């Protein structure tokens, strides 16, 4: 593209600041989206062993957002490497592999194995609300996050992104722990915890009861987390949470994000990423500014 849109995510220089949120996008979108135009590609979260996922129903759209309870259904690391990785690597956009494990060792094992393959870096999912006995435990405790990050750091020289959960008392302390552990950048936010019930029958809309809440409704929450983390921790932020268009993206850049990801909006508009890039570029051009002029430059805050 052009200079205006260039941005840095830790070790990576991206052609533009737009990528996709893990789990909401896959090579299936290649029929609609030119992946070469994305700033980066983020895969669905991969685990060491295959996972069957959660009982159904797994989805429900509420008045203003989406509940999901996929439960990290995925084919497992080996099959991913054999069958999916080659597909992703046909595109020139840097590939960030999202991964999760049930122990620190397992996280390390996956990174070590992936490091033998081709990809640009890792988004470490310690924050999926839809998996029991793990995920949450990792993402909410700064000590655990520090230990996990520092161990992972030893296994790779590639971009190491820790993806944070908003379902914590103090996201800043978790973010700091990730940075101190050696993370190159932070991704936030994962989904909120949410629920919906059919008022006619009393039936939970999601089989697991609670699911992950995403989409437009969570944008203000994501934005406040990005702003608070950006003020306190000086590594780049990959932001997601209700981002649908270039206006939303601008809010996040002002709050301190260096890259934005489109998640739930892909379902509403498969071309959302491309339209965002194009319109963002036009906007910056019309204002005669580049991205770096606005990142973190929110005004009017009286503390």
């Amino acid at each position: 593209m052009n200079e205006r849109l260039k941005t840095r995510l830790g070790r990576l220089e991206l052609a533009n600041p737009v990528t996709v949120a893990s789990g909401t996008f896959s090579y299936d979108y290649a029929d609609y989206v030119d992946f070469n135009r994305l700033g980066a590609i983020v895969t669905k979260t991969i685990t060491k062993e295959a996972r069957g996922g959660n009982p159904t129903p797994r989805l429900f759209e509420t008045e203003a957002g989406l509940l999901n309870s996929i439960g990290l259904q995925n084919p497992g690391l080996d099959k991913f490497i054999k069958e999916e990785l080659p597909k992703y690597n046909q595109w020139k956009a840097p590939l960030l592999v999202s991964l999760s494990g049930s122990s620190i060792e397992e996280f390390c094992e996956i990174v070590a194995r992936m490091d033998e393959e081709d990809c640009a870096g890792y988004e470490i999912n310690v924050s999926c609300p839809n998996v029991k006995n793990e995920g949450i435990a990792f993402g909410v405790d700064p000590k655990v996050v520090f230990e996990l990050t520092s161990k992972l750091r030893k296994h790779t020289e590639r971009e190491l992104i820790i993806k944070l959960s908003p379902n914590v008392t103090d996201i800043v302390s978790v973010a700091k722990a990730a940075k101190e552990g050696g993370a190159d950048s932070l991704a936030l936010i994962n989904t909120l915890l949410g629920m919906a019930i059919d008022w006619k029958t009393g039936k939970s809309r999601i089989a697991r009861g609670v699911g992950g809440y995403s989409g437009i409704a969570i944008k203000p929450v994501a934005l406040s987390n990005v702003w608070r983390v950006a003020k306190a921790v000086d590594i780049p932020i990959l932001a997601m949470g209700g981002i649908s268009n270039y206006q939303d993206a601008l809010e996040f850049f002002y709050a301190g994000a260096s890259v934005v990801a489109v998640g739930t909006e892909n379902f509403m508009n498969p071309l959302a990423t491309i339209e965002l890039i194009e319109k963002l570029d036009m906007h910056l051009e019309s204002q005669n500014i580049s991205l770096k002029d606005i990142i973190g430059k929110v005004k009017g805050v009286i503390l």
Partner: protein
Amino acid sequence: MYKKCLITAFEELKADYFVLMIEDSALAQVSEPGQFFNLSCSDGDIPRLKKPISIYDVDGSEIAFMIKKVGKGTEYLSKLKVGDSIDVLGPLGNPFPLVSGKSVLMVSGGVGYPPLVYLKKKLEDCEVISIHGGRSYDDIFLCDYPFTEDGSYGRKGLVTAHLEKIIKKHKIEVIYTCGPDSMMKAIGRKALELNIDCYLSLEEYMACGIGACYGCAVKVKADNEQGYIYKRVCKDGPVFEVKELWMEDK
């Protein structure tokens, strides 16, 4: 394909049902029975998840959908007019396998009706018997054996009630079905029992519609501990053979 298409016809049917027609020859050429489109149901207002709607008919370069107004999304669709345009994503999913020269039974319930209409048109050299059921007269459309739950039209009761008799009478060799889960399960079980080929077009809540999100999962038999794995209705289906499906109650 993801396209903005022109609405070329709009027809109210009875009660909350209506037919919407779009024009696009590229889409029409590749649209097969059992496939569906994800239709935009909002002008940017929220909620705005796309909604899966089966192909009801293809005529030249036009594609028709038959839709029942049940909530916000379908209500939006019901207010569209000829000359408006709509974003469509599709055709999606796998079509019904077509048979020929067979004695075929089609069983539908509610909005399971439309895909079977298009299927019937495409089946060659088959003798087709159709059963359709719904809550009441308002939900009944053209078929050989209509059933209503409240008895307001056709026979009173569930479509599955006289299933075996009809199968035997017409020497049915293949069953196609689309409708409520419980109905399809009952038909599937009967097909297994009588050892008849049976294709079900399933419904699950969908987000992406193209296989990316794994939201629309359904249990398919597998050689593992649980006995099943989850497949995606949107991409691995929506049509499944009864023999692949995990038929225990959820």
